[in-house]
């Protein structure tokens, strides 16, 4: 009797890209829900626009590049990219911000570099950086947290922010505020002390009102990814350690003008960045030691940008800059092979 042959191993793979991406999406849920709770429905508009644009752009690019569309679109990597970008964008951004962002992420940062697995830079962060540099005004309009809004969030208000013409200036002023990181930076620039600044209502006991809960929700999701072994501890621990050590050093050294490590860890995109963005396998270092170093560098650079840079938040720029160092990090952190000295 004759048989067909194939090559060992004959055991079916235990994992798939799709499965990993599904876990990432699932782990983002606590964060998304907390964001809606704290900042209203704007984030949902961002998600819908970013994800659908990202998936359509992915399909279009696959078609143009002559690649099979279904297996690549169903790997869900475009969904994850779109979602991460959506969560990084301000909740009241006009519709074309997420739209342009998703196109930049998928078309330029991903497919023009060769598609899945070949892009050197994190697509969502490239899109975020481009938007930040190009449309600084639209990128800094954040809603006040729910508890600080004068009359509560109305879906119709948010809707008119995103799709209609911007409402009257009084409405904008009533509904929006700078982010805690932004406010901290501005006020420090005006020679206020940290404790004076933090007495404002947009600051909570840990970091920013609302923001602290969003950060904790991302931390919970991140721990789920760690527990499910979708990511290893090296990058998130590295990022948080880098940020923690830098902020602790300056907090101890000059506490009057340096926010506490807790403030840094629970503000802005630190948790989202540590667990969901820096851990993008394609653009991260690959060796375990290298991943820890990669994380530490991102954390430290985030602190540097937040403190001395031109932008209040540094995660996106830190990730992109350290992406560039990946080949070098990988080269110098190769593990000792069995039987070698």
């Amino acid at each position: 009797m004759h048989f067909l042959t194939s090559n060992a191993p004959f055991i079916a793979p235990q994992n798939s890209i799709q499965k990993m991406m599904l876990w990432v999406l699932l782990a983002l849920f606590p964060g998304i829900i907390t964001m809606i709770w704290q900042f209203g429905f704007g984030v949902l508009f961002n998600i819908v626009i970013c994800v659908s644009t990202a998936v359509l752009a992915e399909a279009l690019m696959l078609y143009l590049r002559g690649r099979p569309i279904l297996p690549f679109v169903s790997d869900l990597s475009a969904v994850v990219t779109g979602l991460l970008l959506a969560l990084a964008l301000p909740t009241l951004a006009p519709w074309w911000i997420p739209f342009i962002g998703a196109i930049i992420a998928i078309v330029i940062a991903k497919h023009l570099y060769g598609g899945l697995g070949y892009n050197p830079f994190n697509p969502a962060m490239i899109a975020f950086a481009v938007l930040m540099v190009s449309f600084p005004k639209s990128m800094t309009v954040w809603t006040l947290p729910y508890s600080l809004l004068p009359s509560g969030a109305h879906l119709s208000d948010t809707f008119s922010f995103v799709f209609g013409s911007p409402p009257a200036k009084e409405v904008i002023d009533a509904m929006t505020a700078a982010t805690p990181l932004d406010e901290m930076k501005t006020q420090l620039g005006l020679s206020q002390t940290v404790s004076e600044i933090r007495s404002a209502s947009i600051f909570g006991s840990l970091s920013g009102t609302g923001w602290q809960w969003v950060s904790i929700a991302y931390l919970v999701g991140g721990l789920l990814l760690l527990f499910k072994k979708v990511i290893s501890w090296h990058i998130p621990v590295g990022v948080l350690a880098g940020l923690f050590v830098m902020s602790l050093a300056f907090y101890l050294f000059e506490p009057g003008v340096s926010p506490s490590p807790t403030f840094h860890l629970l503000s802005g995109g630190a948790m989202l960045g540590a667990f969901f963005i820096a851990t993008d396998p394609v653009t991260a270092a690959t060796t375990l030691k290298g991943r820890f170093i990669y994380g530490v560098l991102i954390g430290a650079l985030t602190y540097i940008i937040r403190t001395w840079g031109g932008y209040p938040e540094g995660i996106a720029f830190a990730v992109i800059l350290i992406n560039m160092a990946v080949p070098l990090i990988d080269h110098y952190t190769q593990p000792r092979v069995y039987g070698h000295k």
Partner: protein
Amino acid sequence: MRLWRFNGGLPSLAEHKNESVHLPIEIAPVPAQLIYPLRQHIGNAATPLVEVGDKVLRGQKIADAQGLISAPIHAGSSGTVTSLADHLIPHPSGFSAPSITIETDGLDNEASHTPCADFRQLSVSELVSIIREAGIVGLGGAAFPTAIKLDNQSKSRHIDTLILNGAECEPYISCDDRLLKERADRVLDGIEVLLHMLGAKRAILAIEDNVPDTFASIQAAVNKNGNANITGVQIPTIYPTGGEKQLIKTLTGKEVPSGGIPADIGIVSINVGTVYAVQQAVIEGKPLTSRIVTVTGEGVKTPRNLEVRIGTPINTLVDMCDGYTPFADRLIMGGPMMGFALLNDEIPMVKATNCILVASKHEAITEKQAMPCIRCGLCASACPATLLPQQLYWFSKSDQLEKAEKLNLFDCIECGCCDVVCPSHIPLVQHFRYAKSALKVQNHEKHLSDVARERFEAREVRIARNKAERAERSRKKKAALKSKPAKEEIEAAITRSKERKQRSTEGEN
């Protein structure tokens, strides 16, 4: 006993032992035909000692070792040699190779053999030659001639630990486990022979901790045997802990140097099936003519652990298990991680065959839709050699083979862990096999071109030297001519020719 941990591996690989691990060893009937490929071990093919038409007995040597790294082959039953020709051999490429075929006569007459009352009376070199003559090779799958490993006298290395490998880490296979369950006392006798030969301080018999009843039978045999230097150890069930290098790391914390052998660090490691064969050869005087094979998978009606004559065709083996089921899809020799698929079931099982896995479609994947590598690094985390499979893949795929070699491609043991954990379903090991063989060809060609270049350069030198020598000779000749009174000679020659002329004209007249 303290245990160590090698990098990665697959702790949660489905073991599939339940299909066959409870089945006692059954002695398989003598098949009608026995086929012996002349090369079923590492090293040179054996040289046939029989002709077509010769009658042979069970245990009779029918092919002899050729050179040091080789092994003789013995007939598994009595019968007549019917062919000395190429036959399909168990090889992933579906090659045919010179083989001896015997039609058995059903009598199973045995050649005379003499049991040994006390092996301690024999010298190490006598024991080495008994094991060599018995045709014993590594039965765990490597098929390296065992006598060479044991011939410690000729080398200055000191062996302090003997490791007996009963860690049957590949899914489905249960032949070593059954052997240890049922014949542990004889395995222990074999261990004593090896300890005596190697002069090792201790012997560690290791099995995985997923078979506690086997461990109990080992402990009982160890207690009965009473040799305090022999220890049974259970180790965590993590594929590929039965790999020689991984087992040595687990038990001793030491690593076999890259490109080296365990003896370099004072260790000899031997599969338990091989130890049993040593016991049979030394104490019972019987050469290696049979072994235990697990026949399993959803593709056979009744999975079995069979003690079979080496040389039995696989279709006969499957018949002994009541034939194929309709699900038979892939015929795999060895386990599903490191075995290979066979084209055809007329191929004989050989000394190294520990398992015939007739896999159904869902037991053995047929093709994988590979996606691009996303550099997730799961392969590196799973690699028991601590390699970076994704980097190796990158270089193998783009034919930058030297770079792959520099990243220690040749330390890859092809265990398949990286393949199984890869979320992009890339056939990594297949890429590495390709890169290794391409590198071997490349290195061989480089060797040939080096030889050719050396020869060319030598020729150039030779030509130049000859030219110089010729020039030197003619210079000497000229000098010699000059030094003689040349004129006289010329005149003498002229006179001689004149005389000749004169004589010839006289003759005409």
